[in-house]
């Protein structure tokens, strides 16, 4: 089995010296693994990713407890550029591109430039042909999906060892999502990059990840490999929207959005 690339141990994140958003979670990502982080609103998924990448500074937040280790180095509360240079790159959920730089400049700005940047650039333009058309346009004027593409592309330009994507499919058209997931697997296979992603569509997440964690209220409540989660009743019911989650044949019985009942189950996993 491959070695552990990233490990988070009992990490706790506190906002504004007052609000605990992540409460002692532990998770790990191995070399070449794709790991998904699922969870409800406000579970602390984004916070976790930001803590790993040192992105917390501006929100007056810090990792107050626990350890984050990447490739044998402790990285919690380190400056983000240092973490980025070690190879941990994040696509944040908001403000993900440089608004006033053009698409081409956005791709050129990252500092740990891949050695084969020309080729990578070509690859990226091939990958997101839409971006090639937009090369000279400023980031701030792009459409939502275009921005997401650009953000992922510019993260790839850093040639990361661990790529973290917050809200992978956010605002992307289905065809792009399909393509992207396929491409990520390819990237992982070819380059050995590990990927940690937060994704709202559990179906998409579970289709590409090797391992997944489910977060709720700042804690990890469930984890396991793809098969285990796919067959977990609660996951089926609340994340995949499959009939009533009684473990029957999963692919057929999708619940319709037309007849949803009111769910009040938030506390079910507390115990």
């Amino acid at each position, binding site marked *: 089995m491959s070695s552990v690339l990233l490990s988070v141990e009992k990490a706790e994140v506190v906002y504004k010296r007052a609000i605990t958003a992540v409460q002692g979670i532990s998770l790990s990502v191995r070399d070449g693994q794709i790991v998904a982080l699922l969870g409800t609103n406000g579970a602390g998924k984004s916070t976790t990713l930001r803590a790993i990448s040192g992105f917390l*500074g501006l929100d007056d937040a810090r990792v107050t407890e626990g350890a984050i280790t990447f490739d044998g180095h402790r990285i919690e509360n380190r400056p983000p550029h240092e973490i980025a240079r070690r190879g941990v790159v994040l696509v944040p959920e908001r*403000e993900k591109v440089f608004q006033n*730089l053009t698409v081409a400049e956005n791709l050129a700005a990252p500092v740990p430039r891949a050695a084969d940047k020309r080729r990578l650039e070509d690859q990226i333009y091939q990958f997101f042909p839409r971006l090639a058309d937009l090369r000279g346009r400023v980031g701030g004027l792009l459409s939502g999906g275009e921005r997401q593409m650009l953000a992922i592309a510019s993260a790839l330009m850093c040639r990361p060892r661990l790529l973290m994507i917050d809200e992978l499919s956010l605002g992307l058209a289905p065809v792009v999502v399909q393509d992207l997931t396929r491409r990520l697997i390819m990237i992982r296979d070819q380059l050995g990059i590990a990927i940690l992603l937060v994704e709202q569509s559990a179906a998409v997440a579970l289709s590409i990840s090797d391992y997944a964690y489910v977060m709720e209220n700042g804690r990890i409540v469930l984890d396991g490999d793809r098969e285990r989660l796919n067959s977990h009743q609660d996951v089926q019911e609340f994340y995949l929207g499959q009939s009533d989650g009684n473990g029957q044949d999963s692919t057929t019985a999708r619940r319709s959005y037309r007849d949803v009942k009111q769910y009040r189950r938030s506390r079910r996993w507390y115990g």
Partner: protein
Amino acid sequence: MQLFINIIVLASIYALIACGYVLIYRVSRVLNLAHGELMMLGAYLVLATASLFAGHPLVALGAAVLLSIVVGAMVYVFLMRKMTGEMVLAAILTTVALGILIRGVIVLVWSAQQQYPAQALNLANPSLTLVGDGHISLWSAVLVATNILVYGALFGFLRFGRWGMRMRAAGQNPLLAAQRGINLHTVYALAWGLSTLTGALAGILMALDSGVTGSMPIIALKAFPAALVGGLDSLAGGLVGALIIATAEVLLIYYVDPLLSDVVPFLVLLAMLIVRPWGLFGTREELDRV
């Protein structure tokens, strides 16, 4: 002819000062209101180095210039670094406070008296006669030349290096920039060092031309409209803006009323901004894309 020379000299002064504003604005969206004081400090540093390297004016000048880069970088490391990510207005106010501090220290060290670095260095300031019976003093001429050099060097540096772009990136979204591996501290310290350097050059050359007193920082304030007309984040803008403002000012003094020379640059600025709210060459600050 003399008018033309006057315009060029004044424009050079403004441009040299303006580029200091531009450099720092670019990386941090902060208007450095201590720029005038840093500029003045450069001039006073010459007095210090002059006594240190008596008899070697060039060494003394060089030392003062180097010192000013160090001062600029130190300002960042010990002060502005703490302000990264804070509200822009707070950072601007910090520069105001820094200005007060520098002014106080200068009075303490050098007293409030008028000082003449040129005298301390034993340098003369002869008037050169140009074609068409135009006159320019030696140090004004040097200032014009320096200005051209500085802009040339900065253009080269920012255009062909990746740093110009990175400075802009860092200015807009520091966190993301850091995430993309850009060391904000390097970029900022660089900007502060360069900005102080150019400011000090302006200060030193003006002081060599006509001495220095505590009121020098106010001149930096007058370079404001220049930086803004051109666009606060554009180097080329600084140059063109300085030219526009200087032309307006010189012609106004000559043909209309010298009293207006204080007000009109700002009127020009207002008129300009109404047409192009982000300056002639500046980039649009807020992209209103929803």
